[in-house]
């Protein structure tokens, strides 16, 4: 007879066994939640070879012996705040004592900050860390019950101390002998809470503050820099905090901010810093059509670009117009000293100066352009991350310029949108001239600058590796190599994988059409390795034309919900830098198995149309297929082949056929009102593969074949979009481009009218396209492109969306003038395409749809990430091009022994400068005037008075063509190379 014991606990133990708490739901209801807690005696301590615990641990039995204060070895038991404020320290490779992570701590970290919790979780899994998660709330000896009148914090602290006590008494048991406790390793409670330390010491526990602990480690010099700045008391105990006056207003408590936002008294939005003027920022909120302006340090109130802030809008009488002057942080704040800047004396001067700048500007602002103005009253979410910075050399104190003593220095972020960051470091002299990564820790209301700490050095400024990595970090591009779990998802055959011979039993051939005999070819830019599309066309007996687009069948290899899929979803897109490609999928897939290389069999997803010779669609079908491409052309080769009258072979014929269709398709699209937009695109010529020194910059050339491929990709995308929207009306992955609000164009329309007497009709995309075509200056062929570039900037960006999440009438793609659109044709480099592939495969009943793609919220979540990554990737590649343009200019300057001169167009006028666009280099820059000039904001002109020019007044207006001197000037403080422009024609402005 089996002995049955009833383990059900009686109600009378409710206090111990039940954890009750209240939860407030989003709808404002209060729910009581009850959790049962089962206490056990077999929760493992994690020490290897422990005699008392059955579970296998990862902590070395002797602990860490390298610390000076604990020669007998020790284990570290940090409390919650250590993880909340010193995560960089914990993540450092140099910091590797065995750590006991309590469940109480883990739970509290999760409750306080989800991102930190995720970092902590990753840390517990890292190979080079020895962290053991101890479930102290479930071990009967260490579980505690909240006392009457005890705050949750006190309860948790008590739990942590109790667990420390238990560990201390458990270690002798673990070693299986009753050795004297002095010879045993210690468990060190790591906490920065002085009260908790006192209590722990009273209980006879080993305890240390983070700083004291780190000072005793082997690599204390490097590690001390990683310490986040917490609480003045530990770092600068002598400084009189009270003596400092608050520079900023205090933030409202979070709850009050939320209440204010809810009652519409406050507004919530992303803080955007003004790149031209560091004393100004703006926040776009739904309540106003124009963004809300924040003028001056006090009103921006410590917001950093990207933060989600709550703002209060002033009365209309106090509204201001945005500044039209360039205010540079570096020139205004030149004399600011990092060590002293938070003390009164000198700081006043700087403030005084800033105030002058703001006021002088204010008087000049045209009253006509007033927009809502307000101030930041609270931060809803900080979006601080690690920023790439340079050390400001002038902030280094002269006396210690070579010493290793700790000093406070300024780090100037590479991005103009960010304020300088103050940090303390011992390594300042080594860091000068390097790109370094700095994290902001906090920004007190007594401090003009945020305070941060040094994370790591990226390398010498202007070295390619450092620049490349800093770019990737700056735009948050995940660039780690693919992990093992991801590579395990690849086919086991590796690069030996081939399409198996056709047979009924082969899973690859199931429901696949054999299109190997078709004359398929691919057309791509030169050097393209990830060929994801190929085309074919042939005449049908009935006079119609069969055209096919074949897309790499990525979804055959990337199965839903495995590590590779998750990683691809997180990366969102492949990022192309000038000299590097950061792949979304492992390169085995991207450049080999999925790449539709010529002469090999590849799996494809085909869209095949029957078109009339006038490019009307008669019929379309979608099928999974096996193809063998017959040729891989570059755009140029394809163009030559098509134009060569001697070539009469099948491939050339099909190219001509495709081309004739593409021309008609394009005409049809243009008639429907598609926009022909322009963005500055340049191509960097790299000298050779080894040195990769750029030699020259040239603008990209567009051929007929570019348009050929583009037309068919558009057609495929539209056909697929219709199909998946029909099949999955709730969750189809689509792409749209919302029509821009008309107000976006107001300024451009005004400039065009005043300067050129031209009008821009923005009532529809068709009207806009037509009026853009009319914007022609016969003397200046590039003028039309310039207007197109400026018009493009007025538009919104296209985005992926889930069809169930928005209204049906907003599906349209404004730029393409298509009622529905998706991305299907580049699954190797865009994740949205992979989703579209899966949905299309399900809609032709090839494979069942993964449940996650039936969930609207899941699709929305994935697409949000993809949208963001897409934006970031674009910005990263643009920044990469800019960097190389800079290098090229430098090289050219050296080669030509003097000034580089380029033609440029004026695109914006400021009170003290001009914004110019150099189309040949694809870059934008500022021409600044140091002397007083006349500025007419209503007519967009700047007049250089005759005192300066020597003879007549020279007036320069928007759209004027000027010639500029391009110089690369190295900021001697920050080592930051920057383009300096001066006018050469119509007037030499180098002395102005």
């Amino acid at each position, binding site marked *: 007879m089996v002995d049955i014991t009833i383990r059900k606990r009686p*109600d*009378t*133990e*409710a*206090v*111990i066994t*039940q*954890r*009750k*708490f*209240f*939860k*407030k739901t989003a709808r*404002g*209801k*209060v729910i*009581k939640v*009850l959790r049962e807690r089962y206490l056990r005696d077999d929760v493992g301590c994690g020490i290897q070879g422990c005699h008392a615990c059955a579970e296998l641990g990862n902590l070395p039995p002797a602990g860490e012996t390298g610390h000076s204060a604990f020669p007998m070895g020790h284990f570290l038991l940090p409390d919650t705040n250590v993880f909340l404020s010193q995560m960089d320290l914990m993540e450092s490779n140099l910091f590797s004592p065995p750590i006991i992570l309590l469940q109480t701590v883990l739970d509290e970290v999760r409750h306080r900050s989800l991102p930190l919790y995720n970092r902590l979780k990753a840390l517990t899994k890292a190979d080079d860390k020895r962290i053991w998660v101890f479930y102290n709330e479930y071990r*009967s000896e260490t579980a505690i*019950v*909240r*006392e*009457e009148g005890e*705050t*949750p914090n006190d*309860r948790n602290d008590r739990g942590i101390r109790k667990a420390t006590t238990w560990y201390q008494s458990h270690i002798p048991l673990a070693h299986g002998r009753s050795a004297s406790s002095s010879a045993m390793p210690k468990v060190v409670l790591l906490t920065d809470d002085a009260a908790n330390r006192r209590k722990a010491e009273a209980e006879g526990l080993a305890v240390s503050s983070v700083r004291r602990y780190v000072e005793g480690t082997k690599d204390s010099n490097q590690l001390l820099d990683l310490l986040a700045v917490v609480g003045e008391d530990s770092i600068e105990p002598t400084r009189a905090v009270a003596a400092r*006056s*608050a*520079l900023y*207003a205090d933030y*409202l408590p979070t*709850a*009050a*901010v*939320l*209440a*204010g936002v*809810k*009652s519409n*008294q*406050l507004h919530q939005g992303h803080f955007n810093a003004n790149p031209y003027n560091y004393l100004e920022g703006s926040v776009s909120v739904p309540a106003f059509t124009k963004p809300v302006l924040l003028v*001056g340090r*006090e*009103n921006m109130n410590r917001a950093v670009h990207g933060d989600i802030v709550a703002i*209060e809008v*002033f009365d209309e009488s*106090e509204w201001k117009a945005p500044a039209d002057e360039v205010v540079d942080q570096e020139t205004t704040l030149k004399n600011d000293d990092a060590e002293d800047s938070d003390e009164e004396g000198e700081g006043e001067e700087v*403030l005084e100066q800033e*105030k002058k700048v703001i*006021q002088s500007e204010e008087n000049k602002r045209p009253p006509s352009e007033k927009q809502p103005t307000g101030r930041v*009253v609270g931060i809803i979410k900080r979006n601080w991350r690690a920023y790439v910075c340079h050390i400001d050399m002038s902030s280094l104190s002269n006396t210690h310029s070579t010493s290793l003593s700790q000093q406070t220095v300024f780090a100037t972020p590479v991005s103009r949108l960010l304020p300088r960051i103050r940090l303390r470091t011992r390594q300042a002299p080594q860091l000068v001239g390097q790109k370094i990564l700095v994290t902001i820790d906090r920004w007190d209301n007594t401090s003009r600058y945020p305070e941060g700490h040094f994370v790591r050095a990226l390398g010498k400024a202007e070295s390619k590796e450092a620049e490349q990595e800093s770019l990737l970090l700056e735009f948050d591009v995940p660039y780690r190599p693919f992990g093992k779990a991801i590579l395990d998802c690849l086919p086991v055959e590796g690069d030996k994988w081939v399409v198996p011979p056709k047979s009924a039993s082969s899973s690859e051939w199931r429901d696949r059409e054999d299109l190997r005999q078709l004359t398929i070819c691919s057309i791509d830019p030169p050097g393209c390795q990830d060929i994801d599309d190929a085309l074919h066309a042939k005449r049908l007996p009935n006079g119609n034309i069969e055209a096919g687009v074949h897309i790499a069948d990525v979804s055959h290899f990337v199965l839903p919900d495995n590590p590779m899929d998750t990683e691809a979803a997180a990366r969102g897109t492949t990022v192309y830098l000038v000299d590097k490609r950061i792949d979304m999928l492992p390169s085995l897939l991207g450049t080999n198995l999925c790449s539709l290389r010529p002469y090999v069999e590849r799996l494809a997803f085909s869209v095949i149309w029957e078109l009339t010779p006038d490019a009307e669609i008669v019929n379309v079908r979608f099928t999974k297929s096996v193809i063998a491409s017959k040729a891989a052309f570059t755009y140029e080769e394809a163009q030559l082949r098509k134009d060569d009258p001697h070539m009469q072979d099948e491939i050339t014929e099909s190219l001509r056929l495709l081309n004739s269709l593409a021309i008609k398709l394009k005409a049809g699209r243009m008639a429907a009102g598609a926009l022909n937009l322009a963005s500055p695109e340049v191509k960097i010529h790299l000298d050779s593969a080894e040195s990769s020194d750029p030699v020259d910059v040239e603008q990209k050339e567009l051929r007929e074949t570019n348009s050929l491929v583009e037309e068919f990709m558009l057609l495929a995308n539209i056909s697929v979009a219709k199909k998946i929207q029909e099949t999955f009306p709730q969750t189809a992955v689509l792409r749209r481009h919302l029509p821009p609000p008309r107000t976006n164009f107001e300024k451009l329309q005004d400039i065009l009218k005043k300067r050129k007497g031209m009008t821009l009709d923005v009532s529809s995309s068709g009207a806009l396209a037509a009026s853009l075509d009319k914007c022609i200056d016969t003397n200046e062929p590039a003028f039309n492109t310039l207007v197109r570039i400026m018009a493009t900037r007025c538009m919104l960006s296209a985005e992926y969306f889930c069809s169930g999440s928005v209204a049906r009438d907003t599906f349209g793609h404004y730029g393409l003038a298509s009622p529905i659109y998706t991305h299907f044709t580049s699954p190797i480099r865009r994740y949205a395409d992979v989703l579209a592939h899966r949905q299309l495969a399900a809609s032709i009943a090839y494979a069942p749809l993964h449940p996650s793609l039936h969930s609207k919220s899941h699709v929305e979540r994935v697409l949000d990430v993809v949208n963001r990554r897409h934006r970031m990737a674009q910005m990263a590649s643009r920044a990469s091009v800019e960097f190389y343009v800079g290098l090229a200019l430098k090289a050219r300057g050296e080669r030509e022994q003097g000034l580089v001169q380029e033609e440029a167009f004026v695109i914006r006028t400021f009170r003290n400068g001009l914004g110019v666009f150099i189309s040949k280099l694809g870059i934008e820059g500022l021409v600044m005037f140091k002397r007083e000039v006349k500025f007419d904001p209503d007519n967009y002109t700047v007049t250089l008075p005759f005192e300066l020019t020597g003879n007549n007044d020279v007036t320069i207006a928007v759209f004027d063509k000027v010639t500029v001197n391009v110089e690369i000037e190295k900021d001697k403080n920050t080592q930051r190379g920057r383009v300096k422009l001066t006018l050469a024609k119509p007037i030499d402005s180098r002395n102005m």
Partner: protein
Amino acid sequence: MASISLSKSEKSYIQTSLLSTPPLRGDGRSLLDYRTIALETGIAPLANGSARLNIGKPTHEGGGGTEVLGAVKLEVEDVENGDGVDGGRIVCSVSCSPAAYPHLSSNALDDLSYDMTTLLNQTLSHPSLHPPNLCILPKKKSWCLNLDVIVLSDSGNVYDALFMAARAALWDTKVPITRAVEYQAKRGGKNPQENTDVDMDTETEQQSGFDTRHISRAVDFELPDYWDEGETLAGQDLWPVCVTLNIMPPTYYLDATPQEEASTPLRLLLAMSFPKSASSRLQATRLLGPGEIELSQIKRLIQEGEKHGRELYSALEAKLREEDVRRNQKARDKFVLR
């Protein structure tokens, strides 16, 4: 109430023995004796307050007593959209288990539940008993206190049991602590010292005649400490107890069994509360049954009833406090000493 059917001779037998000297009762009690009352609080962990009460024989002794279960659930109500009442409200409902009244049809059972609901609701939701801490945000949010009582079995004196269970559940009720969340526009409300730094918008410093700051701008609330059960519902000592006087002229007796109830022509229900600081209050009276009584007699009965009520009240109070200690202090000590 015909909860049980008795023959005329049976009734007459019971009546005669109750009126004889000394009075005789079926279970040997004297006229003013109660049966054993068992009480346990905190029986429903998900409720904000709960109690189980048994008069007679508790279930673990074989059952057969009058068993009543009361539980309090607090709900957030929005006052602005008309769901709730400013300052909170109390809604009571009584449902009778069919097992308690197997001989009643479902309609009759509903009627009975309705009668009891009316009595309990009218008494407990009376303004004189309204606890002040049911308000979350004045004029915006309030708690709705739902008191649900279930009669699991009835062996007489169900009204006393009903009120005692209700009192115990209310006594046990903890109201989650809320903190008002508000946004006060502080236009120009900066410290004077800050104004030396800022030359902008200094004109708003003086007080406006239309200062509306005393009107609370709170729009929402938060739970500052979600682990905490909360504070006790105010007016713990106010919740009334009920004493049923079974009137058998010229005398009366307490805590009737079903048979006694069936043979008694008239019952007087007195719900009384005994505030600590003031004199006792009569919160409700009901006369049940076909019998008659003169007004002059009622006055005497009420005075008698107050005496019995106070006894019942203090006994209940002692038990409630003991329960509280058992569930918290003792359980914790036991845990520490384990």
